[in-house]
C-alpha cells in the first residue's frame, strides 16, 4: 500500500484537531441534574482548577473522525500494490531500414525484423500491470514519436500498423536521450533493434534494456544508380543507366534485374537481365535505355535478397541543362583559342549568340558595358588595352604566392601551381578579389554591375595559365556555377537524406504562397525563394514540387546505404539494463477515480450522519 499523493495525509492532522475540539471545547451547554448515574454515561468529575478530562467517545466524535479519515485517505489516494507497479514503458524502435528485412534463414517464418520487434513489444506490453502507459519513439536522423507520450497500452500495438522503418544509417543516441527524458525517473526504457549496440561505444542509457531481434541475412542491393544522357549531355547521344549491384550475403546469388517505365497507364519493361553475383561481389552494371521515357523503376529480385528496400531504385530521366556560352573574344586573340580549346573538353554547354547566352566570355575592357542581369560574364584581360597600360602591367613569376578565395565555388580545385601570371594591371572599379598576389588582384568579381561579372586580370599572351590544368577547371567551374544559377534542378535523382536544391524562375520566386511537395508519406510545404532547399527526405519515392497547380520540379529519392544494406552483422540477443530504475512506478489516475468518488460520497454520508446525530 502506498499513496499517490502522500501530502494528502496531512489531512490526518484533522483527527487530533477534532479530538481536541471534543476534549476542550464545551460544545454542549451545562445542564444540572440530580442523578447523573441514571443517565448511564461516563462521568467526568470536576473540581476547581485545571485538570485533564477524558475524551468523551460520542457518536458525533466517531462520525467526524471517520469523515476526516476518509477525506484524508481520499486526498492521499492510496494505491494497492497492483496499482503501484504501473509503469511507463518507453520503447525506442530502431527505425533503420534493416529492420524491414525478412528472416530468410528462419525456414518458413518470413517475418520481418519489424514484425518480430512488434511481437516482442506486444509480449512486453501484455506483461505490464493495468494502468501502465507506453510511449514509442522511432530512431532515425531525427527521432520521431510514434505513439504517446503515455499512451494507453491497448492502443500501442495498433499504432505500429503503418510503421515502416526505412531510415539510412543513423545515430540512435538522440532517440535514446528523448526516451530517457520521456521516461522521467520512474519509467522503463527498452530499445528494440536488430543488432546489439556495443557497450561503451554508444552512450546507451544505463537503465535501458536492449533487445535485438536481428539475425544475419543475405542481401542484394543496388548501392548506386545514375541515369545519364549521352557523354555530352545531349539527348541525341542516347541515355545510359549505370548501376552498382552488390551481393552482401555469404553465398552467391542469382538475381533478375528489371527496369520498367510508365507507358500511359501500364508499366513497360525496358530492361530485364539475369545477373550472377558471387558472395561479396560488387558488379557495375550499365545499360542503354531509350531516350524520352521519363522514368525508370529498377528492381533486383532474388531469393537471396532479405531487404527489398535497397533492391529497388527509381530514376527520373535527367533533363539536359545546357549552358549557352558565347565567346566574344577577337578572332586574333590568344585568349579565344585557349578558351575555345578548353570548352571543347567540357560537357554541358552549347554555343550561342551573345544576346541569348547565359555566359559570355569576352574582353575585360568590354565587360562593364554589359548590364543584362541574368547573364554571366567573364572578362579576360588586359583590362586596359592601351599600350601604356600594357607597358605598365606587371608579370608575376611562377614562384609568386597566389592567395585564393577557397570558399568561392569558382575556385574549387584550382591550385595555380607554377602559373606565370602576366599582364597584371591596376583595376579602377569596385570588385571583390578572388585571386590575389600581394597587393595585386588577379581574378575579381565586379561589384558595379547588376549581373555576375568576373574579370581575369591577365594578358594570356604573357601567361602560361591556359597551359595548366587550372584553366579548364576554372572554366568548368564557371560553367557549372552559371548552370546552377539557371532555374531548374541540377540533378533529378537523389539519395535519401540528400539535400535537394533548385532555383525557381523569377515569376515563381516572387509568389507568396508556399510551395507544395508531394510524394513520400505525406505532402508538406516548402518555403518559396529563388533558391529552394528541401532537406530531410527520408522516404524513397518520386517527389514533385508544385506552385499552386503548376509543377515546378520533379525528382526521385532512392535508398542507397551500403552499411544499412549489410545484414550479415545482425545479432539477436538481449542486454539487460545496467542500472535499475526506480521501480516505484506511478499512479494511473483513471482506473481508481471511482475510489475517490466513493470516498467523497462516504464523507458526505458521514457528515449527514453526524448532522442527524446532533439533530436527534
Amino acid at each position: 500500500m502506498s499513496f499517490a499523493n502522500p501530502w494528502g495525509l496531512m489531512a490526518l492532522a484533522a483527527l487530533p484537531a477534532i479530538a481536541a475540539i471534543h476534549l476542550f471545547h464545551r460544545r454542549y451547554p451545562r445542564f444540572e441534574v440530580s442523578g447523573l448515574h441514571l443517565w448511564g454515561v461516563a462521568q467526568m468529575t470536576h473540581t476547581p482548577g485545571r485538570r485533564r478530562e477524558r475524551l468523551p467517545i460520542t457518536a458525533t466524535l466517531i462520525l467526524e473522525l471517520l469523515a476526516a479519515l476518509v477525506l484524508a485517505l481520499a486526498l492521499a489516494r492510496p494505491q494497492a500494490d497492483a496499482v503501484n507497479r504501473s509503469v511507463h514503458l518507453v520503447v525506442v524502435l530502431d527505425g533503420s531500414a534493416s529492420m524491414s528485412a525478412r528472416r530468410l534463414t528462419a525456414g518458413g517464418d518470413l517475418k520481418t525484423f519489424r514484425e518480430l520487434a512488434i511481437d516482442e513489444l506486444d509480449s512486453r506490453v501484455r506483461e505490464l500491470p493495468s494502468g501502465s502507459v507506453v510511449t514509442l519513439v522511432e530512431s532515425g536522423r531525427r527521432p520521431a514519436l510514434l505513439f504517446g507520450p503515455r499512451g494507453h497500452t491497448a492502443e500501442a500495438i495498433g499504432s505500429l500498423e503503418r510503421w515502416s522503418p526505412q531510415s539510412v544509417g543513423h545515430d540512435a543516441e538522440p532517440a535514446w536521450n528523448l526516451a530517457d527524458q520521456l521516461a522521467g525517473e520512474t519509467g522503463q526504457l527498452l530499445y528494440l533493434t536488430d543488432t546489439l549496440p556495443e557497450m561503451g561505444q554508444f552512450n546507451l542509457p544505463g537503465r535501458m534494456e536492449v533487445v535485438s531481434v536481428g539475425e544475419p541475412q543475405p542481401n542484394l542491393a543496388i548501392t548506386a544508380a545514375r541515369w545519364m544522357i549521352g557523354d555530352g549531355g545531349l539527348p541525341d547521344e542516347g541515355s545510359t543507366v549505370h548501376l552498382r549491384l552488390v551481393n552482401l550475403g555469404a553465398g552467391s546469388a542469382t538475381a533478375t534485374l528489371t527496369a520498367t517505365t510508365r507507358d500511359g497507364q501500364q508499366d513497360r519493361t525496358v530492361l530485364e537481365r539475369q545477373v550472377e553475383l558471387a558472395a561479396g561481389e560488387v558488379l557495375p552494371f550499365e545499360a542503354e535505355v531509350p531516350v524520352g521515357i521519363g522514368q525508370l523503376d529498377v528492381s533486383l529480385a532474388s531469393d537471396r535478397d532479405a531487404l527489398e528496400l535497397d533492391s529497388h531504385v527509381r530514376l527520373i530521366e535527367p533533363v539536359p541543362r545546357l549552358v549557352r556560352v558565347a565567346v566574344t573574344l577577337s578572332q586574333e586573340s590568344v585568349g579565344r583559342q585557349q578558351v575555345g580549346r578548353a570548352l571543347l573538353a567540357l560537357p554541358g554547354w552549347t554555343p550561342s549568340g551573345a544576346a541569348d547566352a547565359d555566359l559570355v566570355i569576352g574582353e575585360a575592357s568590354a565587360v562593364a558595358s554589359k548590364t543584362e542581369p541574368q547573364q554571366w560574364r567573364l572578362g579576360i584581360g588586359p583590362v586596359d588595352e592601351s599600350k601604356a597600360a600594357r607597358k605598365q602591367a606587371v608579370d608575376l613569376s611562377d614562384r609568386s604566392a597566389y592567395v585564393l578565395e577557397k570558399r568561392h565555388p569558382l575556385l574549387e580545385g584550382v591550385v595555380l601551381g607554377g602559373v606565370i601570371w602576366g599582364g597584371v594591371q591596376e583595376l579602377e572599379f569596385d570588385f571583390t578579389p578572388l585571386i590575389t598576389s600581394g597587393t595585386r588582384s588577379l581574378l575579381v568579381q565586379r561589384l558595379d554591375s547588376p549581373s555576375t561579372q568576373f574579370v581575369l586580370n591577365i594578358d594570356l599572351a604573357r601567361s602560361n595559365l591556359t597551359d595548366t590544368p587550372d584553366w579548364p577547371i576554372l572554366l568548368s567551374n564557371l560553367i557549372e556555377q552559371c548552370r546552377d544559377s539557371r532555374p531548374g534542378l541540377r540533378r533529378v535523382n537523389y539519395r535519401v537524406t540528400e539535400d535537394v536544391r533548385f532555383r525557381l524562375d523569377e515569376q515563381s520566386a516572387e509568389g507568396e504562397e508556399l510551395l507544395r511537395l508531394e510524394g513520400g508519406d505525406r505532402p508538406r510545404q516548402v518555403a518559396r525563394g529563388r533558391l529552394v532547399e528541401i532537406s530531410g527526405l527520408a522516404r524513397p519515392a518520386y517527389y514533385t514540387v508544385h506552385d499552386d497547380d503548376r509543377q515546378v520540379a520533379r525528382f526521385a529519392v532512392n535508398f542507397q546505404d551500403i552499411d544499412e544494406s549489410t545484414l550479415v552483422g545482425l545479432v539477436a540477443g538481449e542486454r539487460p539494463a545496467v542500472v535499475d530504475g526506480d521501480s516505484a512506478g506511478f499512479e494511473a489516475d483513471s482506473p481508481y477515480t471511482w475510489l475517490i468518488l466513493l470516498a467523497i460520497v462516504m464523507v458526505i454520508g458521514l457528515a449527514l450522519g453526524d448532522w442527524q446525530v446532533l439533530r436527534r
Partner: protein
Amino acid sequence: MRSDADVRRAADTYQLGLLRVPASGRAGDLLGRGTGSSLEFQEYREYTPGDDIRHLDWAAYARSDTLMVRLYREEISPRTEILLDTSLSMNVVAAKSLIARQLAGLFATLAGGVGGSPVVIPLTEQRPLERLGLDQVERLVEWPFTARSTLAELMADGSVPLKPRSIRIVISDFLFPHDPETLVKQLASSASTLWVVQVLGSWEADPTVLGGRRLVDCESAAEADLLVNRSSIDDYIQRLHRLQRGLATACRRAEATIVTVEAESGLMQVCRDDLCGAGILRVA
C-alpha cells in the same frame, strides 16, 4: 412553613393517615401499642398489687368474687421524625425544594395537631444533625438546600439519630446511588411507621429532548456530555423505574409506604392525589 398558605390550607383539610400499629409516646390522641388510660376498653385481667384501683371492675368482682381490672388501650401522642433531604439535588429546581419544605411543614403541623412531638431533621453536613421542633419548623423557609452528603451515606455512617417506635417520614428524591433494600431497611429499623415520599421534578420524572448537553451532577459535580435524545431518555426512564421498583419492593418488605410526587404539581394536588391515595393523609 406553618405560615405557608398552602400548608395551612392542607393542614386544615387533611390529617395523618391511620396508623396500622399503635405507637409509643406520651398520652395523646393516637393509640399506643400497650394498655393505657384511654376510654377504649381492651380486656380484663386479675388485679395485681399496684394496679390502679380506679380500673377495678366491681361488678365483675361481685359476679365472680375475683378482683378484675379493666384494661384500656393506651392513648399516646406519637413521636414523629421527619427526615428532610436538603441536598443540592433537592434544589435542582426551586419547586422541588419548595414542595419538600411544605411537606415537612405539613407533616409536622399535622403531627403536632394530634399531640405528637414532631421533629424535622434536615439532612445537612452539620454533626450532629439539627432537630427542629414544631416551634422551629418555620426555619425551613430559609433553610439552605446545599448538602452534598446523601441520605444513604448519612444512614450508613449512623449520623441520623432515630428514635425507636416513632413515626418516620422521609422526604427525598432518592436520586443518589444507593441500594434501596439496605436504605429502606435502615430507615424502617425500630420505626413504628415509615412513610417515604419521593419528590421529583417534572423533568426528572419525564425528561424532554434537549439535544446535546453537558450533564452536571449537582451533588458530585460529575459531568458527562450526552445527547439528551429519545434514546438516552428511554434509557434514563428505564433506570429510574428500576430504582423506583427497588424502593417500592423494599418498602413493601418493611411494611412502609412510599409515594412519588411531582414537585411542580403543587402541595394541594400532591396531598389530594398522591398522599391521600397512598393513605399517608386522609381528609379530616
